């Protein structure tokens, strides 16, 4: 499914992987997280080969994947306790991170009482709470309506700026990718490889409608062969 995928995420860098559905984006994340074993290859940290299980990973899935039988606070505490934190400290840290995502007053609620966007915010708080070495996010906003997604993107950046942990964010939305990222990797082909990488050096506090971002989005879509440029088939299937 994947071939010769080599990518580097720097400390403090927000890296987005863009590609259409099913091309293997999630597989890359799963390999880094140690959930899937690669047929060949390694995950290196600071150029040293490391056992995936040594890396502290915060994972945010497409669906919130909260435990519906635990309260919001206990859901965040679950990840902390799994990381070895004591129960009391886990509760305290959970509260802190829930406050960070603006859900402090919902800590005793159960997930089914919250909206999809709020559940996803809990999932983000859970991933951040363990203070991971690396944050992995698999299309976390793709199941949400666009309005909620916009507000969560901005919030994610706001929180991320405070800690600047390296992030690998997978998405099929090219505009979202350039809005969020410092580095965009374009994944394409069967088997998939990184066909191109883009630097987004715009200052933070970006606007989704910024023409510079739209231009970068175009570049990505061109590379993926989805626009009419470069003799590629346009969206109607006919080369421009």
């Amino acid at each position, binding site marked *: 499914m994947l071939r010769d995928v080599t990518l580097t995420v720097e400390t403090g860098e927000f890296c987005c992987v863009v590609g259409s559905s099913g091309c293997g984006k999630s597989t890359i994340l799963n390999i880094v997280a140690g959930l899937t074993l690669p047929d060949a290859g390694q995950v290196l940290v600071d150029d040293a080969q490391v056992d995936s299980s040594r890396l502290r990973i915060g*994972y945010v899935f497409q669906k919130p994947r909260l435990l519906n039988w635990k309260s919001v606070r206990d859901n965040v505490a679950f990840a902390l306790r799994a990381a070895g934190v004591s129960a009391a400290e886990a509760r305290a840290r959970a509260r802190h991170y829930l406050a960070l995502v603006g859900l402090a007053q919902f800590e005793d609620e159960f*997930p089914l009482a919250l909206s999809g966007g709020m559940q996803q915010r809990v999932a983000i708080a859970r991933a951040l709470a363990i203070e991971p070495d690396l944050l992995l996010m698999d299309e976390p906003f793709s199941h949400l309506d666009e309005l909620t997604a916009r507000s969560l993107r901005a919030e994610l950046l706001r929180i991320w700026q405070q800690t600047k942990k390296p992030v690998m964010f997978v998405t099929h939305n090219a505009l979202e990718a350039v809005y969020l990222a410092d580095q965009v990797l374009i994944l394409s082909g069967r088997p998939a490889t990184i066909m191109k990488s883009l630097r987004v050096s715009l200052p933070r506090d970006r606007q989704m409608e910024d023409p510079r971002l739209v231009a970068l989005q175009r570049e990505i879509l061109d590379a993926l062969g989805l626009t009419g440029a470069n003799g590629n088939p346009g969206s109607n299937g006919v080369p421009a």
Partner: protein
Amino acid sequence: MKSSSSSSEGAPGAPIWQRWPLLVHLASLLAVLVVWHAIASFFPPTLLPGPIPVFGRVWQIIFSGTFTVHMGATLLRVATGFFFAFFASIALGIFMGVNRTAERFFEAQIVVALTIPSLAWSVIALMWFGISELAPIFTIFIVLLPVITVNIVQGTKALDHEMIEMANAFRAGRAMVILEVVIPQLVPYLLAATRFGLSLAWKVAVIAELLGLSNGIGYMIHYSFGIFSMLDVFAWTLAFTLVMLAIEYGLLKPLEARVTGWRRAVAL
């Protein structure tokens, strides 16, 4: 934010029987008693005793302590048989749920075991183990085992693997995954199995006692049959039923409510 479960409940102006569901339950019970009393007046008390003599007899057997003795004996057999069946079924059910080969292997045996009537098992057990506590306990165990196992297998197959994957992504240990992610998902199946298993166990116990034991509810019902006292048959059955209801409403329903409270939260 939680929404109320029925829009008319508590609404002023709604008829009283909608505002207080308990009244409907009580009215229903009262109706049964009244009809029973009315019909019984047409029959001799040796054929159909009315509620008043029956409740009087119930009070007698409880007050004299005989009920406690026999109810206790039956209860002990049920509890023991159920206990062993419950845990053996969980182990076997989870094993079959996660392992396809195990499932295929045990499926035939379970289907066969399910079709053998509990009466047959009772007789076999009495012939094997004689008139002892082991006979009814074994019977309860062997009747319940396939039933609860099938239930647990379904529960295991319905497990949400995305939750387990999430737990693995956060490096949760095996114990945490089983206790905090798997078991809570099995709870509704465990509850159903407990309810059904207990109700089945009582019936099996009474049959086993009726056949060959010298104490217990089944024995007393048989004894009452022997002296042809319909009053006693009714009274023992009723007393037993009251205990069953007490267990259901005093133990199982509150347990269920506690353990599934999170379901009643409603999305915004």
